[in-house]
């Protein structure tokens, strides 16, 4: 199968097309995960830490946990609504 190396340096190891696609998918997944975490941090900070105190209260901590769960759930609901062809 095809293989190729970085255009900028001839000394780097050659990648098979399969390895290339695996690496691409892995690295994209990592970028998506980091961005998702950044989003969840922002949203849950807004919702749960309204008046920052000298430490995180019990209600703030449990709010954060619930918020993460709900945000993940919301992502699923939106995903389904956008891509489910049977919905009208």
């Amino acid at each position: 199968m095809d293989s190729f190396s970085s255009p900028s340096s001839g000394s780097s190891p050659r990648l098979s097309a399969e390895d290339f696609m695996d690496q691409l998918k892995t690295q994209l997944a990592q970028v998506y995960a980091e961005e998702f975490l950044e989003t969840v941090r922002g949203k849950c900070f807004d919702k749960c830490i309204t008046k920052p105190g000298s430490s995180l209260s019990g209600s703030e901590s449990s709010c954060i946990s619930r918020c993460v769960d709900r945000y993940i759930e919301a992502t699923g609901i939106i995903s389904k609504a956008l891509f489910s062809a049977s919905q009208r």
Partner: protein
Amino acid sequence: MKSYREKFNMAGFLKYVHCISTSSALWHLFKQEKKKAMLNELVSKVTKECWDKCITDTPGSKFSSSESACLSNCARRYMDMSIIIMKRFQSMH
């Protein structure tokens, strides 16, 4: 908010594009990943907007039926709106 092009760049792969284009099988796979990245971005953007519109109280241990209906409706109305905008824009020529 990073676009899918930035995501591909962050994954360090945009520099390989001219190499990939010489292999049609690989180019096809690469375009599939690009399409997935665009869809991921759409879901991400719509979820952010609809979360703000629909989840007004402190998050609970589950969504109320009105909250989940709002999220679902919000996503569909967003798509309806996108179509209107596109048609309107196209009719301006």
